[in-house]
């Protein structure tokens, strides 16, 4: 069993396609993606309803940029994560090796909670991204989080 960490961002204005998270696994261990949740607080009701594509993907090279985030261990006493995570990145990454192509209804939230068999593994030094593939019709104030498990 590994050590579990959570990263999140809130109050993020998004008006274009975006890589919400990019995780770079440590060079000495594997990472398993446990869950991804996406929401927004600016649009509601009939006029605000919208459907946006979400892709969970690997890339061969880092997208880079965005804001450096600090993964928080779910258990007090666990060491800092070996993975690095950046959030709210304007780039998309190449080549994109998508594993899940799904859709987020902005008023109900996106909840990726696979069973263990459907969890993505990121190899040592590998990259994993959560990407919005279509731009919102108007700017969204977004919050999103991701949980992952590291194995030394």
């Amino acid at each position, binding site marked *: 069993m590994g050590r579990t960490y959570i990263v999140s961002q809130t109050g993020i204005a998004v008006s274009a396609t975006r890589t919400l998270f990019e995780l770079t696994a440590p060079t000495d261990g594997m990472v398993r993606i446990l869950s991804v949740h996406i929401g927004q607080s600016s649009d509601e009701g*009939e*006029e605000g*309803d*919208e*459907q*946006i*594509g979400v*892709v969970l993907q*690997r890339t061969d090279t880092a997208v880079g940029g965005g804001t450096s985030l600090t993964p928080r261990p779910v258990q007090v006493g666990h060491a800092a994560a070996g993975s690095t995570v950046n959030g709210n990145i304007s780039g998309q990454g190449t080549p994109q*090796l*998508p*594993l*899940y*192509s*799904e*859709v987020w*209804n902005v008023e*109900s939230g996106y909840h990726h*909670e*696979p*069973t263990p*068999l*459907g*969890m*993505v*593994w*990121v*190899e040592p030094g*590998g990259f994993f991204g959560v990407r919005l*593939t*279509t731009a919102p019709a108007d700017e969204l104030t977004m919050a999103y989080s991701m949980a992952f498990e590291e194995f030394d």
Partner: protein
Amino acid sequence: MGRVYSLRFDAQSVSAPNDLMTLVGVSSAMTRIISISVGQTTAAGNAAAEILPISIRRYATSGTGGTTRFRNPFNRGHGTAQVTGATNHTTLGGTPTVLYEEDWHVELPFQVTPILWDEHLWIPPNGILAVTLPTAPSVALLMYGTIVFEDFT
């Protein structure tokens, strides 16, 4: 334990009955379905609300008219999937046996994620399994889909 892959498609316009995703098992092994999800980005709001039947079915013969897709491995070191896959067959497969049949509200994802071991669907050797939209939507939908499966070859 097998090797896990996904078959998926993005932003495909669907305006008629469609085998959204089709997997064809190999002759030497079984294939297990881990999860299925389908969504669309075109229709939003009350005026666009629509409920469509969607089914998971076995076929004696595969549909035609779609696109053969690469299956990306969930573990980077795994080789190419032996199970083959295609998306968006416009001519549905032959002699269907329906396994699941549900009504899909197009503004929410259609998801099948079996929790219990015994709930998983299996594809027998050389078997064909498809996720199918058997009736046409009232307007063309830009659709997305993913099927995650385990290849035991």
